């Protein structure tokens, strides 16, 4: 039985056994009453960790962030979408999901609930690959799960209503930067990705300015191809294997001076823009301020990259759809 004390609850580790991703802050409590921060939200829970503390009968203090009821509701909505056939029904159900998103996260609901629901429902990546991503860096792993959740939101608002299609968006977004999970991965490579996000086209220059090694530069500039090759090799990840091409568009710019191909805005399709935008919405960071104000974060997301990246239309569709359903909610029609 859990004993509540404020937001913190005392919890036995066996309660964590079924969870794959930590959905709150977990502290290990010593006999002297001292607390150690053990797990942060959004990272994978190692089964060995659970096993170890189960044998030790360790006592943990836990601050949950995700709402299990919300997660279950999202999952049931996704399942309903899965079994619909006609485009009108699919569109209406997608609208229902967006409406629910607004109702939950418009009232301060934690974004992690949506992230975990999406992870449970759509993640189709082999466990060893996920572990590799997680072992490379936990913050990078967390970023991929957040970006992938945004891809679902963007997919639905950009008129992609078919379950297999949005599932593919999720997995592609997760695997987009898999190429950087290399032996030569470093803090600099992660920061270069962030720089590329903040100021499109500046990632490589930033690495050079930081006097990064040739291997680091290579990891950064070749990671789209590596990710693409990996997805091509693992065909089971995607329902539509042809969508793997999207990975090659992740660092393309509107002007056509991105890498690796230099594709201009006019040749970037909406499905590529959806994934590209979802990736750029989240940086590799140790914490995110937008988790409880995700709608404000989306609406105020007006930085430079929206002009420089070929994603403006996808972004406008997202905000348009959110405003539309918000108005419906307000008017009650």
């Amino acid at each position: 039985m859990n004993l509540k004390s404020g937001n913190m609850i005392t919890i036995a580790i066996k309660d964590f056994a079924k969870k794959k991703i930590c959905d709150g802050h977990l502290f290990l409590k010593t006999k002297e009453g001292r607390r150690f921060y053990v797990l942060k939200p959004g990272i994978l829970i190692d089964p060995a960790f659970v096993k170890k503390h189960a044998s030790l009968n360790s006592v943990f203090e836990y601050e949950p962030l995700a709402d299990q009821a919300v997660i279950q509701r999202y999952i049931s909505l996704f399942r309903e979408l899965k079994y619909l056939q006609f485009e009108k029904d699919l569109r209406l159900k997608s609208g229902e999901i967006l409406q629910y998103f607004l109702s939950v996260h418009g009232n301060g609901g934690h974004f992690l609930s949506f992230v975990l629901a999406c992870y449970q429902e759509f993640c189709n990546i082999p466990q060893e690959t996920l572990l590799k991503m997680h072992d490379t860096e936990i913050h990078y792993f967390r970023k991929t799960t957040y970006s992938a959740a945004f891809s679902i939101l963007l997919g639905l608002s950009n008129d992609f209503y078919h379950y297999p299609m949005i599932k593919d968006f999720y997995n592609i977004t997760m695997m987009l930067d898999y190429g950087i999970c290399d032996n030569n991965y470093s803090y600099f490579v992660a920061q270069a990705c962030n720089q590329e996000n903040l100021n499109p086209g500046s990632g490589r220059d930033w690495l050079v300015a930081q006097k990064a090694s040739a291997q680091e530069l290579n990891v950064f500039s070749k990671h789209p191809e590596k990710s693409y090759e990996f997805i091509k090799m693992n065909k089971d990840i995607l329902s539509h294997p042809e969508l793997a091409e999207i990975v090659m568009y992740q660092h393309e710019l509107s002007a056509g001076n991105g890498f690796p191909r230099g594709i201009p805005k006019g040749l970037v399709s909406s499905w590529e823009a959806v994934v590209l935008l979802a990736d750029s919405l989240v940086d590799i960071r140790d914490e995110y301020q937008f988790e409880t104000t995700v709608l404000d974060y989306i609406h105020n997301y007006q930085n430079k990259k929206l002009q420089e990246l070929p994603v403006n239309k996808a972004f406008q569709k997202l905000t348009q759809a959110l405003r539309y359903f918000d108005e419906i909610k307000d008017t009650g029609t």
Partner: protein
Amino acid sequence: MEKMKDIAILNLASEFPLELKSYFETRKVNFLASGSSLSPTHILVDASTNLKEIALKYKGALLISLSQPVDVAEFYKLGGSLVVDKSWLKNDVGPFVLDKFFQENGGINLSEKFPSFQQQGSFIVSNPFGTGDYLDRLVYHAFSSDHGAIAIRSYFDNMVMFLASLRDQGKMGMPIEVSYGASQDIFGIQMQFNSQNFKVEDVSRKLKTNPSRKNEEYLLYHAVHSTGFFDFTYLESLEKVFITSLWMKGERIDFENRGYLFSTLKSSQAIASIPEQGVQSFIAEEPELIDFLDMNVETAEAHEDGPIVISGGEKEEEFSQTIKGSTPEEEFIQVINGSNEKEKNVAQVIKGSAKEEDKTVFKFGATPQKEEKDFRLSAAPSSEKKADNFMAIKTLAGEPSGEGQKSPFNLLKPAGPKNLDLNREKEFLLSTSNKKVANTAEQAVPRGPSENEKQLELKVKTLNSENDRMKTLLKMLISEVKIVKESRNALAEQLRGEVASEQIKNLEVPAEDKENILLNSLKAEELKSKRLLIEAAQKDTLLAQEVERGSKQLKAKEMILDKTKEVFTKTIEKKDSEISSLRQKVEEISKLGVGPQLLTQQNTIKDMEKQNLNLNKMLEMYKAKVTSMATSLQKQAVKTDEEVMKDDNRKLLMINTQLKNQLDVSKKDIARYQEKVSSENTNLLTLKKEKANLEILLKKAILASNKEGPALGVANNHEQELKKLQTHVQFVESQHKEQGLKIKDLEAKLSEAARMLKTQSTSEDPSRKAIQLEMNVKKLTQDLVESRNQLTEMKKETNKLRQEKVGLQNMMDKMKKDAEKEKNATPKKATGGKVA
């Protein structure tokens, strides 16, 4: 534009359109003479050109056909890439297409070259077999901008299916992004998708001049033949396909003016696309569709009197027509599958003409006090004043008067389409009639025709009257036409008369002038009469159209009426039959009378009483059973305690006997061990005796050896060993003593335990006894085990002692032998010395 400099064009077409010429001139494109030594990059051809010959002569040059080639697939096979008719060059599309073709990249933003082109919508096709809703909306937009919706629908359907077949071959990837838009004259659809292992020839070679039996070719044929311009561009570097199809308003899409463009682009510059005019999210902006069957209606113009309009709504549930009342009675509207919204946008005014004196107004869905016009029929053109051109219709016989809501057919009900829908009303009537029937069955009293039946009858009557009214309308229209014709003839005659009178008047004027004037006036009059005739003819046609429309509507109304009549008659028949059956039942019941009813009731009461008695008996039986069961249960409960006690005692006795047995066994064991110990003691004593003897012998031997010298050291050693043995023996003896004491203790304990058993078995609680016994037995067994272990140790030690004893005896024997030998040896030595 730099690419245009490298272009060299050779014109082999018989006709060179001016638009094309001006295009090339503005782009400063090089033209080659027919005998030029330079090789052309592009050759203009037409139907009269021998393509094979040219393809052989100018290898590598791209062919541009200015007319439709005989075999399109063959044309592309021979190096053709563009077919553009001059009709396409007359508008903005021509230069755009040519730019896209010659510059090989598009690279042109449609919004720059084609500013009037606006995107009307976009959607994603994820499943090629689920496009119905999207297609409906696409066609809606095409239709609303007066483009060939049928051709567009046919194109889209066939093209999507063709792409689905390409997907089966692994050459096409989902999804398909579709965007569509229109300019003033052109409607365009652009599809883009990913493709793998693709070649333009995969499509171009499937283009046939006649419909093929092969599924793909058939689909492509119909798709391409439904467009005005078909542009298929494959972007090799990105493996993407862009299909742009254009339709021109006004121009007939046929074999002659169709355009084709097949190109493979190797560069990855931006391709021409329909510009984004704002963002169109399908999920956020769900366009409302109008039923285009209602699109023949004219826009209703607002009038203070509120004309009756037949209007169509946009929402799906409002695909209907309303016949509205005048403004004050807006609440009183009859809807025939109609809507009350947006009637201003799409509405139908049933026009007619009427003179002021004919303005008789009859109420339809309005209170009789208000003499306002509900229907206005006008035959005049829209430019004329409305007040002069309307005609009201007389009311129906037996029209509803007073409060509208009292009407049995909801004619005067508020304008909610749900309330006023005929089908729903029908259902309502049926349900109410059902209820009524149920009520009659309950009451079992026959009545006359119910209110609903009356309502139904009334409704049928009113529908009939409406039908009559429509017929009168039609008649009136026809009469109006006749009136117009008559007025036209009268006017013509009047004009002729006027002309004749003027001619008579002008007889007095000089002959030449008069003739001239007459001729002029005649001409003018002729012109006037011609105009009048033309106008009359136009009016005729308009009237004829309206009459046709009216007759169609009448037919439709009649159809509806017939159907409703049928339905109502059927329902009435059903209800009649139900009512008759109910009546029959009631009659049967009534025929049965009071007497037999009582008898039957008495019988049933008797049966019931019998059943009651039986049940009471059963109850008593069960009660007795239950009480007996309860007593037995109580007894069982009492017995069980005693039995449990007995069982416990039995168990304890059993345990007691077992323990006693164990005690006996252990006593026997102890006795056996005591015997053994005593025998061991006797052995020990004998050993001690032997030892003492040996010691004596040893001492003797030592004394003897002391005399003899060399055997002294050995004797000392033997002494030490003997001492050790003595101490060991002493230790063993002490242990023996201890063992003996322990055995005694054990014996004492056993006797105590036996006593305890005897005493406790009689006095104490069986459970305690058992516990104590168990404890004692445990102790005894432990002691036994200990004593056994000690005995085994003792045995081992006695064995050792025996061995030592044997060893000592051997030693003693040896020593004795040595001593004897030495004794024997010393006299010999002495004798020997003596001899020497």
